[in-house]
């Protein structure tokens, strides 16, 4: 009797745990918010930040739905920019590897990437990039629906008509597909992934990235 009671209790506990951690349907998304100016004073050229002639080039391959990329953008990218980009040591570039929507036949990763291209047309890539990550809420649950992508553009004060046309016309669909193909050709293990002076590094956190940058700087004969 005790055994059956224990088994029943175990089943109930497991069920409760599963119910608490169910994939969310996306009907409780908070309102869109605009990110603050992400890197004030740092020269930006489209998707690149920093001195175009910097001795080290760091390229991030990311998906706007990827939580690790969000964490990097919110917590580590500002540190990287402050320590390496603003000091002229590194040029930092973001490239798309929008793949997290493919397994569900969705389009949120690719739509978000295309929307960032559209924002770039208005000189607002990095603000929109930061805003996407600020409004990241799970994966494939509507956080990057077209309405919300437009709302993000509006929150940043972009020309919403131009932005809407850019999205609706699929202006950058091919560009996103090409970026994905380039990322896949690099055999990246996931996102975020980084190359330092063209070499894919084994990224496992901020220290692993800065170690690779420091090594590249030493190779270039530049001291911090």
């Amino acid at each position, binding site marked *: 009797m005790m055994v059956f009671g224990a088994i029943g209790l175990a089943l109930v506990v497991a069920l409760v*745990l599963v119910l608490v*951690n169910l994939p969310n349907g996306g009907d409780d998304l908070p309102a869109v918010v605009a990110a603050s100016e992400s890197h004030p004073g740092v020269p930006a050229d489209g998707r690149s930040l920093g001195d175009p002639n910097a001795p080290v080039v760091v390229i991030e391959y990311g998906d706007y739905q990827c*939580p690790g990329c969000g964490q990097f953008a919110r917590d580590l990218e500002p540190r990287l920019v402050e320590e390496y980009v603003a000091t002229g040591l590194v040029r930092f570039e973001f490239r798309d590897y929008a793949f997290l929507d493919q397994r569900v036949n969705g389009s949120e990763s690719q739509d978000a990437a295309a929307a960032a291209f559209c924002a770039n047309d208005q000189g607002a890539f990095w603000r929109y990039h930061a805003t996407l990550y600020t409004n990241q809420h799970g994966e494939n649950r509507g956080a990057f629906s077209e309405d919300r992508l437009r709302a993000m553009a509006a929150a940043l004060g972009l020309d919403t008509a131009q932005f809407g046309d850019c999205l609706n016309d699929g202006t950058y669909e091919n560009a996103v597909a090409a970026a994905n193909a380039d990322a896949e050709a690099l055999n990246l293990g996931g996102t975020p992934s980084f190359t330092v002076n063209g070499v894919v590094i084994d990224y496992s956190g901020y220290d692993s990235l800065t170690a690779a940058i420091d090594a590249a700087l030493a190779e270039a004969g530049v001291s911090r």
Partner: protein
Amino acid sequence: VSRRGLAWWQVVSFGAALAGTGVAAYLTRVHFDEDALICTVGDCQTVQQSEYAELWGIPIALPGLGMYLTILALGAVRWWWPNWYGQATVAAFALALSGALYAVYLTYLELVIIDAICQWCVASALLTLVILAAEGVGVWRWLEPAADEPDVTETGRASSGDRAVPASRVRYR
């Protein structure tokens, strides 16, 4: 009631719970210190940073750590206090059953929803299944006493019949 050596399934359960404690403690640590993450297979970072990596705002590895430690404690209880052998074994089995079912669900999330696999999470799930199997053997033996195992009485002697306490309460093999 006296104690005696551990049965093979108790050793298996104890070893798996000890290993699980290490894995869960490590996963709890890397939740707060990403640089400590070592991942040779899969994409641990994506899994660790997914929305499913927390339960009520706490790292999901923390309840797992609690489960392993409780199973270790229950193993100690049935060794030190044989009168509680049956209850401790059933409790450990029930705990492992909950943990295993939830681990199966988390593995489903990794494979289907998150689309990334974490070697440490898989290791933890397998260890939970090992504990479940071992404790299942324990419960089975408690319910179905084996003929080849001597009974243990309050004096610790092996006896063939005169049980000073109910056999179901003192068998621990």
